[in-house]
């Protein structure tokens, strides 16, 4: 649309024709109040707060429905308008209780703000207010009817935004009331049968909808608000944690993203919004445990636990060699921790026996894209794509943000979504075309697309640009085939779906027995040459390590934030000859077998960076705190220190003074200079002062890991920064996909909306939601069988 110029309050503004006046004004810094208007949702024009005076129009106009055109003149603040808004508020307050001092929304309530601005706090009504008791619709959602101002935001958010349509409005005028989709009966009140995302609570401008986990706990101004990244799935939503001081550190009381920063805007799913309470689980480990002479785990000091662990590690390394030790990394720790873990394994222990619980085959993805740039799609790309081909998976359950962005893109930008799946998934309702892969399966996809006979393949072929999103259904050679198919066409980009919050980071940071950070083969000549004692032969994968343990060949196993005993359904007795060190939040099945258990901090209690499955890096900030636990980063540094290593060779920190001669013959590449200092200097960065500072590792990651060239201004501002696996081309030891990966190593988690592996098990809120939805399902099955 061409730009038009119009006047608001005497200021000349320019915006594309057809822009809503309220949006144009907000962009220009002119605030127009509105309760019912919500960006991205359909227009309601129900609240009459946004009224403005338009020249030559007899009555006040609603700014949320007025589109701008050339030469219009508006006035947004005048005594007349203030009077109109005051009258609106007075009517809204007619039934609204003045219980702000106890209301959850008090202090961040849009109605409260407007009442302070325009007055009408004193009512001229003499009638008694309608009072109804509050209702609990689910473990997450409570409804306080008298506070509701009938703005319809929740209804539209649930229907249009979430495509759930679980909220409605009954009756009319002053009797109108928001209702959930399960009717009340004599036995129980009204219930919500939905995805329990809590978006309705989030968009409620007043305190009518309140959250089961936050209500009546605190006031907004008593919390610190820390912006970090959700730890539950691999989409990497930004989440703002409301944190309050507690007896043993600081506790998280709320999670939302009202500042709309990050890729997800204001979106969070049930896990992100309510599933943070695992950090306060009574089962949380807060003291190191060491197995005593009687074979029992007993609490110990950090010093003792580190001494026992490092003593044994050192002894086994020195007597049986580094390859008698195995290391298992985590899908939930930060990039810095993963990087440090593999560096610890490879340089301190001296083994390539390092792996993680793979939920998808990122290594094949990186290999298949080797030598190509600009072929991976970030989440922001997907949010704005014209056409998306979604193959397999069930994003609504496993990648709620991806599902949200696809829905929003289809709704607002008329994007074309194509779905090829062996099941019917909910997103099919937004799809332009679907391809049923029930017969033939995913192997048939490419043949079917290339045939050009079906409407589906014709539509795909007609797209000028396409983003292909696929998941663990494609592994090894299948990934290569699919990507080769896309690379033949211009303008095809890819996204590969994994499961946990930093699965991609674990793969990118080289938690592989055969791959270094950046998917560089350990056999590649000259790779990571500055690592001291880097073993050249590939190590054992996780199943191979466990086999070695069963055979009695594995002296020690260090497990960081993983649970191979449960994940691989192991017989616990195979680990009896292995000295087991576990860093974890909880006494998992694996930790229960350990000789030393070190209590780790959760992602909400540390800082660093994480990479979501689309390759978008985001910064993690420490929000909560728990006495007794330590971040995995610090634990690893302490383990290295305990083994007598000069820690500065592991984590580059402090000024080391060896800047060397930067002349042609004896420059940074000569091997004599401190390469890290030279690099820092060249990039205008300061050396980090603490060995426990993850940013020191981030510097080294940026220096050494291909693809991790970071836009630090954006990263540190809290934005997502896209990276691509920049695997080197064939000339530097390229290994074909088929030779690289064993697809059977990949075990997808298939988490649902309310499960999140080990973390979800310890979240009371998620357990309750899962139970509630299971009950609703049982009830509706019962109703159906009764109707039959």
């Amino acid at each position, binding site marked *: 649309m061409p730009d038009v110029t119009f006047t608001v309050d005497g200021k000349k503004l320019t915006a594309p024709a057809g822009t809503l006046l309220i949006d144009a004004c907000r962009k220009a810094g002119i605030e127009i109040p509105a309760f019912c208007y919500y960006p991205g949702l359909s227009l309601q024009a129900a609240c009459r707060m946004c009224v403005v005076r338009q020249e030559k129009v007899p009555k006040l106009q609603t700014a949320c429905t007025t589109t701008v055109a050339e030469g219009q003149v508006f006035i947004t603040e005048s005594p007349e308008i203030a009077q109109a808004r005051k009258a609106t508020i007075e009517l809204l307050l007619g039934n609204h209780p003045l219980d702000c001092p106890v209301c959850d929304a008090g202090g961040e309530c849009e109605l409260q703000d407007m009442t302070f601005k325009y007055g009408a706090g004193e009512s001229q009504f003499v009638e008694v207010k309608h009072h109804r008791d509050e209702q609990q619709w689910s473990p997450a959602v409570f409804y306080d009817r008298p506070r509701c101002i009938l703005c319809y935001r929740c209804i539209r958010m649930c229907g249009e935004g979430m495509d759930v349509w679980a909220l409605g409005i009954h009756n009319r005028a002053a009797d109108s009331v928001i209702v959930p989709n399960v009717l009340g009966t004599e036995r129980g009140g009204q219930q919500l049968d939905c995805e329990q995302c809590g978006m309705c609570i989030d968009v409620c401008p007043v305190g009518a909808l309140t959250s089961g986990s936050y209500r009546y706990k605190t006031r907004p101004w008593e919390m610190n608000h820390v912006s970090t990244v959700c730890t539950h799935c691999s989409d990497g939503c930004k989440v703002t944690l409301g944190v309050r001081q507690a007896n043993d550190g600081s506790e998280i009381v709320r999670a939302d993203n009202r500042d709309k920063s990050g890729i997800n805007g204001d979106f969070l799913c049930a896990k992100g919004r309510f599933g943070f309470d695992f950090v306060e689980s009574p089962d949380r480990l807060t003291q190191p445990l060491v197995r005593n002479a009687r074979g029992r785990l007993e609490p110990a000091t950090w010093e003792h636990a580190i001494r026992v662990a490092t003593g044994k590690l050192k002894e086994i390394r020195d007597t049986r060699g580094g390859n008698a030790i195995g290391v298992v990394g985590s899908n939930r720790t930060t990039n810095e921790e993963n990087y440090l873990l593999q560096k610890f394994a490879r340089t301190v222990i001296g083994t390539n026996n390092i792996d993680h619980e793979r939920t998808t085959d990122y290594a094949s993805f990186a290999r298949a894209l080797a030598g190509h740039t600009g072929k991976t799609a970030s989440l922001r790309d997907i949010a704005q794509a014209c056409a998306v081909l979604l193959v397999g998976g069930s994003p609504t359950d496993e990648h709620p943000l991806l599902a949200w962005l696809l829905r929003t893109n289809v709704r607002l930008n008329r994007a074309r979504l194509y779905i090829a799946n062996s099941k019917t998934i909910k997103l099919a309702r937004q799809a332009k075309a679907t391809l049923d892969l029930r017969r033939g399966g995913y192997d048939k996809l490419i043949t079917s697309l290339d045939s050009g006979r079906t409407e589906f393949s014709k539509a795909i072929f007609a797209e000028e640009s396409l983003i292909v999103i696929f998941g663990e259904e494609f592994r090894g050679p299948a990934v290569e085939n699919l990507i080769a198919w896309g690379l033949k066409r211009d303008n095809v980009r890819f996204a590969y779906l994994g499961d946990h919050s930093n699965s991609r980071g674990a793969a990118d940071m080289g938690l592989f027995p055969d791959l270094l950070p950046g998917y560089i083969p350990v056999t590649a000549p000259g790779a990571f040459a500055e690592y001291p004692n880097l073993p050249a032969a590939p190590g054992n994968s996780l199943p191979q390590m466990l086999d070695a343990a069963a055979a009695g060949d594995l002296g020690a196993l260090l497990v960081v934030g993983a649970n191979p005993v449960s994940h691989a359904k192991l017989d616990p007795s195979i680990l009896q000859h292995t000295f087991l060190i576990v860093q974890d939040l909880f006494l998992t099945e694996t930790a229960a077998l350990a000789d030393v258990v070190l209590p780790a901090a959760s992602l909400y209690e540390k800082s660093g960076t994480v990479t979501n499955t689309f390759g978008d890096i985001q910064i993690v900030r420490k929000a909560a705190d728990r006495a007794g636990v330590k971040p995995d980063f610090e634990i690893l540094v302490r383990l290295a220190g305990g083994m007598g290593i000069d820690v500065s060779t592991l984590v580059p920190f402090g000024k080391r003074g060896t800047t060397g001669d930067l002349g042609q013959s004896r420059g940074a590449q000569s091997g004599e200079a401190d390469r890290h200092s030279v690099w820092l200097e060249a990039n205008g960065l300061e050396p980090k002062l603490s060995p426990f500072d993850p940013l020191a590792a981030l510097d080294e990651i940026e220096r050494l890991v291909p693809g991790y060239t970071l836009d630090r201004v954006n990263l540190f501002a809290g934005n997502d920064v896209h990276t691509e696996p920049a695997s080197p081309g064939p000339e530097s030891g390229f290994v074909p996909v088929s030779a690289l990966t064993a697809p059977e190593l990949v075990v997808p988690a298939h988490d649902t909306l309310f499960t999140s592996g080990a973390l979800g098990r310890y979240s009371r809120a998620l357990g309750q939601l899962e139970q509630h939805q299971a009950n609703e399902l049982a009830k509706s099955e019962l109703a159906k*069988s009764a109707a039959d």
Partner: protein
Amino acid sequence: MSPKKAKSEPATVFSPELAARFDALVKKYPVSRSALIPMLLYAQDEVGYLSNAVVAEIARRIEITELEVRNVATYYSMLRFKAAGKYNIQVCTNISCMLRGAYEVYERFREELGVGSDGVTADGLFSLEEVECIGACCWAPAIQVNYEFHDELKPDLVPGIIGAYRQRIEDRAQDPFQNKEKDA
């Protein structure tokens, strides 16, 4: 719907005639949900009120959620969710009728029937409702009994009206050929 059920003809709560009428009605509009309000009215005329089963079947027929059906149905005061009497007596008490004695008429109905507003007599024959304007101001005070109007009323006419409806029930009971409801 269970998959087993979906294949066979789904069970209906409506008479075959009404079901056939709905089948045609749904196809009449470009968007099937446009048929919602006429369906609600016809369903109420036949069943007497909008039971849960009626709401569920209408939702299924036009492929919207039951919640959406209720969103619309609860908006209209002429749509009921509880059974009314066979003859639903709606007494207008808006201004014209009120000025010409609607409340006296209403009170007389209450006495004669022994029920209050929204009440149903024990035999299920009559229900009484106080309603807003029914558009018969020229002949105020007026009442509407199902789809029939009675106007220029006086309290003394009330027993006669009730009696006439009772008589109609008895006539039908005696005449098997007239048993079918015509005035609904």
